[in-house]
Structures are given as C-alpha cells and as structure tokens.
C-alpha cells in the first residue's frame, strides 16, 4: 500500500514533501496565536478544496453550492451536541450521512434528467439557497437567531468533545488534509478515478467505452458531499456559532472553490497550494494594512479577485501544474 502510494514519485519530491509535512507538524510550536488561526483557516480550505475537487476536478461536475454540505454537517453535529450533549465524533455519524444523502438527491435529480454544466451549477446553488431559507425557519436549530455551542475556559483539550485550544483543531484539520490527500490519490489511481476523468473529458465517449456515467457521477457527488460535511462539523465546534445566513451563503461556496482554481483544478496538490496562496497572502495583506493603520473593508475580496484574474491570465491550469514542471515533476495530476 505504502509502496504503491509513492510509486513513481521522484525522490527529491518526496524529500520536499517530507520537509513540508514536518514544517506543518511542528508549526504550532513556533507559531503565534494569530498565525495559528490563519493556518487553521488555510487547512480548512485546503481540505474543502480537496473535497470539491473530486466533483469538479475529477468527475467534471461543477458544484457552486458546496456550502450546503458544510452547513448540514455543521448543523447536525452542533444541534445534537446542544440538545442532547452528543459529541461531534458521534454527531458526525448523523451529519455525514445527511450530507451524503443530500448530495445523492441533488445528483440523482441532475444526472437522471441529464442536467449538466451551468444548469447543474445553478441547481446546486438553488439547493444551498433553499437550505439557507429553510434553516432560517427551523426552530430546532434556533432559526435566524443562530445556534450557539456552550463555551467555557478549558483547562485541557478534550479531543472527544472538540473543546479546547486551537492547536487541537489545527492537528485535527492537518490530519484531515493528509487523509483527504492520500484518499484522493488512491481514488485517482483506481478504476473509479480513471472513469471519473473519462467522464470529465467527454461523457459520450466515456459511455461508448462502457462506463455507466450516471453511477460514477453519483459516487463522486456522494463522496464529495460526505467529505465536505466533515469540515462543517469542525467548523461548528471551532467557531461555536452557526447562522444560516452565514453558513449557507453563496459566498461560502465560492470561497471553497477559489483554492482549487488558483492551485490547479484536477490536481492533488492544487487545492492545498491554492489555500496557502490565497488565504496566506490575503491575511498578509490584511495585517500589513492594519500595521499601516489603513482600514479598507473588502480589501480581501478585491485581493481574491486580482489573484483569480492573474491566475486565469497567466496560468490557466493553476499554479501547481506550473510549479510541478518547475520542480521537475512530470506534473500531470500529482
């Protein structure tokens, strides 16, 4: 298994990867509280980007409503905790299937009736918006008033209930990013991964070589939705408050997809690299502006816009494919 994972990867890339992983593992030891929160956001988006990438980058289905799955995971786990004291790791056993079922439902509607491309994207936005309005009126999750998780000073980290210092969240997310990365690599090298790529490239040609495109698109949306909802659970327990208007807002869905677009859609490193570049640089910009005493609301959004433009013009495949060539990886889908 291990041998297959690193099969064909040049040595210097493995060394480089080892250094990056070591740096990430050791980072909390030296990072300031502020830097740590930035790193948490980066890992959060790296993970989400990876999950979204399965649908768009691998299977070619553009979802612009992925925050739906974040929200379902977040609300399910948080509500179970608030109402019944059920911990997040148990709560996600409800949240993840709920998101998976929601994904399956949307996928079924779309793929059964051959809704593709832009229309599929609009459908995904529609369901996220539907959830936003629906949760506004759902008393069980406190509607527009917001769902709050009890917060107290914790003497030590309680991993089982995800209560404690941000460092704990950092490591949970780091583990999630690593697992998602390995999982995606395994998927991409397997039968299903090849079939996804074929569907992405040309669905009719894929059918002509015997691929049941409906089935494999369904698998993609369910895996992607389920993975995404895990990030929602972490989100809920990290921020301790959930408002439908924030969690299900379309701008959340857009944030999820920016990382992979900038980093490289369909690549394994792209979502991670994109999250680092976007969030990292945006935070640097914000703190630089703060240091200068300039208060510019929306500077981050403008920065995202500029980044997207630059990438689209200069590196339409994203930063990773370019970087992969630079470090001598035959960087097709690494």
């Amino acid at each position, binding site marked *: 298994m291990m041998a297959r994972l690193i099969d064909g990867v040049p040595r210097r890339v493995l060394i480089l990867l080892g250094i990056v992983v070591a740096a990430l593992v050791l980072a909390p030891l030296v990072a300031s509280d502020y830097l740590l929160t930035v790193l948490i956001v980066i890992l959060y988006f790296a993970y989400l980007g990876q999950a979204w990438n399965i649908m768009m980058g691998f299977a070619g289905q553009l979802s612009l409503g992925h925050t739906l799955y974040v929200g379902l995971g977040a609300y399910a786990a948080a509500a179970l905790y608030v109402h019944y004291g059920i911990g997040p790791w148990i709560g996600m056993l409800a949240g993840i299937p709920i998101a998976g079922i929601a994904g399956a439902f949307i996928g079924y509607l779309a793929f059964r009736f051959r809704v593709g491309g832009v229309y599929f994207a609009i459908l995904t936005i529609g369901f996220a918006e539907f959830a936003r309005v629906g949760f506004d009126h759902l008393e069980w999750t406190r509607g527009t008033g917001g769902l709050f998780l009890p917060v107290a000073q914790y003497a030590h980290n309680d991993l089982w209930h995800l209560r404690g210092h941000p460092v704990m969240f950092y490591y949970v997310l780091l583990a999630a990013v690593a697992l998602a990365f390995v999982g995606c690599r395994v998927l991409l090298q397997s*039968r299903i991964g090849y079939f996804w790529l074929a569907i992405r490239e*040309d669905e009719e040609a894929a059918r002509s*070589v015997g691929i049941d495109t409906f089935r494999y698109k369904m698998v993609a949306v369910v895996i992607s939705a389920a993975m995404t909802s895990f990030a929602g659970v972490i989100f809920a327990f990290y921020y301790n408050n959930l408002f439908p208007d924030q969690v299900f807002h379309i701008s959340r869905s857009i944030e999820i997809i920016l990382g992979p677009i900038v980093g490289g859609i369909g690549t394994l490193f792209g979502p991670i690299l994109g999250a680092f570049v976007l969030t990292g640089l945006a935070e640097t910009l914000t703190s630089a502006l703060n240091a200068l005493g300039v208060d510019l609301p929306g500077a981050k959004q403008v920065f995202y816009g500029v980044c997207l433009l630059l990438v689209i013009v200069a590196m339409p495949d994203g930063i990773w494919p370019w970087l992969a060539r630079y470090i001598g990886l035959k960087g097709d889908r690494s």
Partner: protein
Amino acid sequence: MSALLKVDGVSKRFRGLIAVDRVSFQVPQGAIFAVIGPNGAGKTTLFNMIAGNFAPDNGTVSFAGERIDGLPPDQICRRGVGRTFQIVRPFPMLSVEENVIVGALLHRHHARDARVRAHEVLRRLDLYDKRTQRASALTLPDRKRLEVARALATDPKLLLLDEVMAGLRPTETDRIVAILKELNSETGLTVLLIEHVMRAVMALASRILVLHHGAAIAEGAPEEVVRNPAVIHSYLGAEDVA
C-alpha cells in the same frame, strides 16, 4: 457461420427526414463488413442505433442472439460492441496510455492489469512510443488509431469503425488496413466499418452494404457491389470503377 450482429428492418426518422429506412443485414462472426454510401445516406445514424446512441423507431438490432436496440451505449459496450466516432473524440487531457487504460478497465478491476492490456493494444496500433503524450497533442492519424485502440481495449467481439480512414494519406490508410486485417485474422475480431475510402473497403471487406437516402440499395461481395449499376449511379461514379 452464425450472425453475430443482426439488424432487422430498422428505421430512424428525424422530424420529416427518414434517415434510415427499413435496413436489414447480418454480420457473420469473424467477418469484416463495410457500409458505404454518399454523405447523408444514413450510415452514421445506422451506427448510432447499433451502438445505442439512438433507439430505432422501428425494427430490431440483435447482438450475439440478444436484442440490444434501445439499450444505452455503455450497456451495449459491456456486451462486447466497441466503437469509434466519425469525429474523433479521445479524452484530450489524458495521456495516450490513460485513454486506452480507461477502455481496458471495463473488464478489469485493477489499473495495473489494465495498463498491461493497454500496452499490448498500443503496441499493436503503433502508438506505444507515444503513450506518455497527451491525446490532444497527437496528429489526426494518431488520434484515429488511438480511438481504435481505446475501443479495442474494451475487448469487443464486434468493432464499429466510423470512417477511421477519412482524412488520412494513402500510406496511413494502408497501415490501418494492415492492422485491422491482422486483428481480424489473429483474434477473430468481427468488424463493421463505415468508409468512404474505397481503397480500404476493397482491401478489407468481405461483404458490403450500400446505403442511399437511408435505404439499402445493394448488398454483396465487393466485386459484385462495385459492378452494380445502381451503386455506380448513386455513389461510385463511372471512373471509380475502372
């Protein structure tokens, strides 16, 4: 010889236009069967009905003794019918090897086994040396052979080739003809081809069906068909026969 493919009275109408009009023929196991006819004669429509892209309005298509008309293309492929497209459509951003691996994975569950099969097919089609190139970077003749390779990798019993020689130079045509002959004689692969290039048709086909305005106007051995006055009149033109 038993018929591997049996097309019985199929018709297809697009609004007012009858694209295919009650066409029947049988392709015996192990044969190379050609469908010829002028542009717009309904050849590709006929193909699309066999491959499952359209369901026929009337008539039946049977493959290996079972009805396949109306089934979706992926199920027809899984039963053993491989096809190429008239306008080539390899998976552009995938490498040549990956294109063929996708086909080989139809009946194999591990990428490793599929790669072995893909290499075998690529060698046969003279594409092995180009296996790491992106499909979009290939020249047209190479892309045409890649389409054949991808279809072959699915281990079909019947291969449907939609104008794989069109746009090729005569030397390229001869190369594909040689490859197909070899495949047919060595593996017993049955081939049904649509073709305009008579040089290839005459070299390959054991039997020819001629379509004109959607209807079959002649069927028979190549020598008979090219002497048929109706075929000469509608398709070949006088000088081609000489």
